[in-house]
């Protein structure tokens, strides 16, 4: 490899193709404009081109590809949700994940680990049992296991949690997985690029134009000029309220930081993904050996990706309740993303009162796992101007009709 690298460096012409084509100019118009070059926007572009033959598309990203929540998340993938619409939707995503590396010809390091959601109270055990039954009903591999089974699977865990929060059981979900998040954005981006989609980084959407009636999309204003288009997909996660205000729409979304941190690499010792709602902890070990850890959402609205010592301290304390032997392991990095939270912990997807303005938002702390299925269903919705059957329950309109989903119980700790 070093020899190949040296030869490569000394060549005057670089034979390796770049990941994406750089476009110096924006076209005057596109059939569709996708705002946000995170996993969701890029996946929608990919499936629009691949499955619907719509390739005259621009993805507009104000920063760099995948630099938003896509590159900040803790990459947990699972489908053991609580509501039928949630379970069906996320299960389809888990299915799509399976052959993405092949599709992209890019290693996503998709790694099936198994996923334990720990129950420390009787009421948590009850919720786990409920989730397991809903899951099984839809053919999802999900079961309630008792404390002994948890201890057998994780002999290094203190299942009494230092005596103050003994583990009574867990929901075990064998398909639970993690993947390399940057590669997901790049894979979708490269796949879309090769099919003719233009990706414009460092381009910020500053306004969205509607026709004279104000009810139909006419174009997009960016810091690099104006684009005419009849279809806009808004997939900007933490910036959703700002984009919605450009077309005069209100929503229940509010922005809260979600923080995470990672330890120095240690020998592999933790195979499954561990989540504890009561202790506000979730953790997995990467292929490189680092422990990737997260906790619950910051408790108040904030449009910032700052990190706090409070977060690191309390997460470390809870980690030590579960795994006291980690007391000498160092935290090497912490960061945050801006989570677009909804009151019912389900996304907001599909059409809006503005014709031609499609929304893919409300991904809060749970949207990474949904990247493939949201791309698939949003591209269908854009191409047919009709919501995909899997996302009918997630429309913006549900709040006006008081038809919220009941997903809250399954996502109380962020991921």
């Amino acid at each position, binding site marked *: 490899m070093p020899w190949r690298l040296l030869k490569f460096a000394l060549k005057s012409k670089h034979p390796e193709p770049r990941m994406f084509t750089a476009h110096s100019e924006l076209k005057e118009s596109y059939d569709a404009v996708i705002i946000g070059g995170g996993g969701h926007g890029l996946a929608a572009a990919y499936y629009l081109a691949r499955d619907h033959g719509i390739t005259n598309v621009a993805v507009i990203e104000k920063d760099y590809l995948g630099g938003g929540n896509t590159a900040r998340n803790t990459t947990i993938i699972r489908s053991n949700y609580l509501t039928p619409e949630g379970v069906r939707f996320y299960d389809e995503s888990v299915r799509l994940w399976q052959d993405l590396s092949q599709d992209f010809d890019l290693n996503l390091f998709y790694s099936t680990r198994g996923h334990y959601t720990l129950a420390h109270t009787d009421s948590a055990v009850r919720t786990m049992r409920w989730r397991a039954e809903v899951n099984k009903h839809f053919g999802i591999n999900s079961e309630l296991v008792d404390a002994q089974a948890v201890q057998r699977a994780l002999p290094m865990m203190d299942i009494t949690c230092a005596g103050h929060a003994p583990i009574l059981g867990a929901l075990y979900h064998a398909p639970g997985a993690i993947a390399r998040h940057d590669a997901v954005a790049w894979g979708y981006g490269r796949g879309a690029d090769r099919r003719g989609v233009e990706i414009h980084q460092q381009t910020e959407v500053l306004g969205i134009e509607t026709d004279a009636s104000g009810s139909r999309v006419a174009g997009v204003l960016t810091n690099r000029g104006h684009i005419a288009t009849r279809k806009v997909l808004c997939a900007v996660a933490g910036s959703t309220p700002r984009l919605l205000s450009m077309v005069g729409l209100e*929503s229940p979304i509010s922005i809260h930081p979600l923080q995470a941190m990672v330890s120095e690499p240690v020998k592999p010792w933790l195979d499954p993904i561990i989540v504890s709602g009561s202790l506000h902890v979730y953790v997995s070990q990467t292929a490189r050996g680092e422990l990737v850890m997260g906790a619950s959402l910051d408790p108040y609205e904030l449009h910032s990706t*700052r990190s706090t010592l409070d977060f690191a301290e309390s997460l470390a304390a809870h980690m030590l309740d579960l795994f006291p032997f980690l007391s000498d392991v160092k935290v090497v990095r912490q960061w945050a993303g801006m989570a677009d939270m909804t009151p019912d912990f389900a996304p907001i997807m599909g059409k809006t009162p503005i014709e031609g303005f499609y929304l893919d938002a409300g991904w809060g702390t749970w949207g990474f796992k949904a990247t493939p299925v949201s791309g698939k269903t949003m591209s269908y919705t854009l191409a047919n101007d009709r919501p995909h059957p899997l996302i009918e329950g997630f429309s913006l309109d549900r709040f*006006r009709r008081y038809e919220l989903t009941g997903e809250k119980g399954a996502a109380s700790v962020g991921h």
Partner: protein
Amino acid sequence: MKLLTCPLNGTRPISEFFYGGEVRAMPDPDTCTDTEWSAYVFNRSGVAAVKCEWWCHGPSGVWFLAERDTTTDTVLRTYLAPSAATRR
């Protein structure tokens, strides 16, 4: 923001407080439409701004108002709600 100033108890660590959301005007439930009511119940002004918010000092149970910039997390001022102050 690591500290917050309660108008009654003075400056305290942020962990002693909890957030009660932005101050919003409630439409009259007897006269408003279902749509106006659902908008009030669910919709929020999600865009970053200087907002007037309810905060509570947990140990003493004092509710008060804070003007906070939701981009920089700086508090411009805190004060008791006018009506609450007169009732006290």
